[in-house]
């Protein structure tokens, strides 16, 4: 739906301040970035992570006592979907060198590297291969590829500063050091990165970058990477088997306590499937669909944090889950598109964020958490400069038309065709009208603990991507996640293959760790009334839900 009359009136205010704001941007005299101290204060006062009830201690398991989002705690404190006694682990359906759980960017990269190194691979994934957050990434992928202006050194500083200096240094080094070769690998697979006629990769800024280091493929960078990986995976049917609509629900350990496969669940036929593997790579991605604090999300349908639960039960600690990333610019109007992401590239290109008075109240390239907190502040009673939406919510403006003044007419449509068409469908022309935005749940900063060779404390279990934590510390910068999943996905593929090639098929498969976990829950008198992993969010209308019955056989 187009902007109603009331909002059109408010847009006039934005238009009135625009030329002056453009002028100031050209001269470089606008609202500046906050100092580190001010950032800290802003976060503590307004970021959802710092709200009173935003964290709760986990009461069982390897990270007992660690306080994180209650929604994630609930999944960790729930019982398994399986009754271990009911599963016959001798009835093995598949055997393989390597089981990769999750068919997104991390799982896909791992599979190609592992198959290339000679391993026999199974990818088990929840929906289709590529139905994943990776597919949805629009903005770009960072790497210090420019010789005269950038290097891994500067990339490192940006990453660790963005993460509030909490990141694991070895993981950061690996990320920035392997970035250029990973980008070159993707180029070699035929990924169509946007380039100048001489082959120079086009780059731009992102929030928190000191150099233009964001490489992109139009405004569908993640989709271009994911469909390329998927196509290449399909080129190796002799080495890579794909089990779609088969989410993993529990890891399997062997008699020596090593990871030895997983129990999958076929969503079409509702049967359990046992896979025995010499090594497992967990690449299940993030958890936006747990709707932390009731927030809308940018994430794909299957992002329910399953990997955290499975690994945790098997003894792997979780780290950095106390911070959750809210993307500053989610669509808040029109409601049909609610929660969807407006890529940071708009701000990278210079678009201001302005309040109901048309004033720029925050530098548009603060790190994401600071930017989000600033928007929430502007809409709070303390400031009260929000723009009200027809359905009683509120947001602020992202002044996309400003880019037409900064970069020339036609820029918005040319650089952001996806978003241009999306809004056009609702009768809004974002090259002429600003967008109404509010922070949206976006990225799971933390995850299971792992090392720079992608190994975990559980022998035989490797991990990569959004499910793993430490690379980005408490806050990830845009473009470093596509990078993370491909860099560490490849490393996981390599390390797990090396490990598996020297091993025999594991023996003595068991789910005893699940039994033990259940006992621990019982001892702590915890009963959430739920089972986990969650697998899919339930959006069924509650009235219908109430009446849904299971007919006895």
């Amino acid at each position, binding site marked *: 739906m187009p902007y109603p009359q009331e909002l059109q009136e408010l847009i006039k205010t934005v238009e009135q301040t625009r030329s002056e704001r453009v002028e100031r941007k050209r001269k470089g005299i606008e609202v500046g970035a906050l100092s580190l101290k001010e950032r800290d204060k802003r976060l503590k006062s307004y970021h959802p992570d710092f709200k009173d009830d935003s964290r709760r201690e986990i009461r069982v398991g390897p990270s007992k006592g660690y306080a994180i989002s209650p929604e994630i705690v609930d999944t960790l404190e729930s019982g398994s979907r399986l009754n271990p006694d009911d599963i016959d682990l001798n009835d093995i359906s598949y055997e393989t060198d390597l089981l990769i759980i999750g068919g997104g960017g991390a799982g896909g990269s791992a599979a190609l590297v592992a198959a290339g190194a000679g391993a026999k691979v199974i990818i088990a994934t929840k*929906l289709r291969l590529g139905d994943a957050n990776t597919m*949805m990434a629009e903005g770009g992928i960072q790497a210090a590829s420019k010789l005269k202006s950038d290097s891994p050194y500067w990339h490192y500083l940006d990453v660790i500063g963005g993460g509030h200096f909490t990141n694991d240094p070895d993981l950061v080094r690996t990320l920035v050091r392997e970035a250029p070769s990973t*980008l070159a690998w993707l180029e070699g697979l035929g990924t169509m990165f946007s380039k100048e006629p001489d082959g120079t990769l086009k780059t731009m800024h992102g929030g928190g970058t000191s150099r233009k280091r964001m490489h992109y493929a139009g405004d569908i960078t993640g989709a271009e990477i994911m469909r390329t990986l998927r196509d290449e995976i399909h080129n190796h049917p002799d080495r890579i088997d794909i089990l779609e609509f088969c989410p993993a629900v529990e890891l399997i350990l062997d008699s020596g306590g090593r990871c030895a496969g997983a129990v999958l669940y076929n969503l079409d036929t509702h049967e359990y499937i046992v896979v025995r593997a010499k090594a497992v790579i967990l690449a299940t991605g993030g958890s936006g669909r747990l709707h932390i604090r009731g927030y809308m999300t940018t994430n794909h349908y299957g992002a329910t944090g399953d990997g955290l639960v499975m690994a945790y039960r098997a003894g792997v600690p979780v780290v950095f889950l106390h911070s959750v990333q809210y993307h500053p610019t989610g669509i808040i109007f029109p409601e049909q598109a609610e929660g969807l992401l407006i890529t940071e590239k708009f701000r990278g290109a210079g678009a201001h964020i302005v309040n109901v008075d048309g004033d720029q109240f925050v530098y548009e390239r603060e790190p994401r958490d600071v930017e989000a907190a600033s928007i929430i502040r502007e809409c709070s009673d303390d400031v009260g400069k*929000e723009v009200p939406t027809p359905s009683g919510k509120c947001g602020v403006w992202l002044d996309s038309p400003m880019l037409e003044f900064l970069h020339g007419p036609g820029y918005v449509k040319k650089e952001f065709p996806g978003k241009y068409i999306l809004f056009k469908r609702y009768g809004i022309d974002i090259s002429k009208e600003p967008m109404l935005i509010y922070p949206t749940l976006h990225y799971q900063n933390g995850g299971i603990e792992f090392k720079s060779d992608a190994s975990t404390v559980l022998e035989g279990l490797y991990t990569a991507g959004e499910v793993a934590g430490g690379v980005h510390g408490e806050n990830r910068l845009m473009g470093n996640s596509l990078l993370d999943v491909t860099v560490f996905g490849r490393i996981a593929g390599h390390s797990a293959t090396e490990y598996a090639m020297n091993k025999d098929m594991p023996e003595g498969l068991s789910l005893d760790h699940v039994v033990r976990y259940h006992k621990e829950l019982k001892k702590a008198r915890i009963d959430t009334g739920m089972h986990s992993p969650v697998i899919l969010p339930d959006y069924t209308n509650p009235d219908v839900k109430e009446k849904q019955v299971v007919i006895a056989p």
Partner: protein
Amino acid sequence: MASQTVPVEVKSETKSEEKLIPINVMDRRYMVPENLTIMKALEYAGYQLTRGCGCRGGICGACGTVYRMPDSHRIEVALACQTIVKEEMFLSQIPFFPRNKAIYDLYEIEPEQSTLSEFYPEIFKCIGCGTCTRSCPQDIEVMDYVAYAIRGEIQKVAELSFDCVMCGLCIARCPAEEAQPLVAILARRIYGKHIAPKAKHLSDRVTQIENGHFDKSLEDLMKFDAEKLKELYVKREKESELPDPDWEPEDKSHL
């Protein structure tokens, strides 16, 4: 408006005062709120989707849907996650349509006029009916890229098909039994690998790294405590935001 918590998807959209309209899901009639997308309407009606739902953001191509309005003979197409329900529409999702992908070694392929048709010889059977173009929810000129594929103009196919989400609706409706999106991705990959100019600065940088050029500076950074890192972080020079390909920092150390 203190600390706004935005309600999650469905809850926000099933307010009781909303007007309900009838839609027909595979010929079964349901009353759903008029402002929902087809996907959310299915869920409102009580479906727990497994197939036919992926990204919920218009990019994965899982949710291809065909529908007809009672007063028209036309078959319309939509992505269920992107399209608002229409009163009395008759719809069916087509979450999957069979297609046979050719297997190739991209490293060995030489981009020639006949390359695409070698792997997908059926492209010559295209009768130019334009049904694919009319069936594309992404408004891609599908027939045109098939025509370019027949002529062997790989770059053109790559560019025209760039926004393809591989939903398969064009495959489902093609009288000549083509698999258009598979031809398209082959073209895009050949273009990306063999035709587009190489990023020389990238391979130069990879060589520098392999030669250990940055090992020392990275090791130093790893040793610094947070205070020292903060100091360096705050002092970083910021590259200009406006387009300036020749920008260079004053501080040329660590490059």
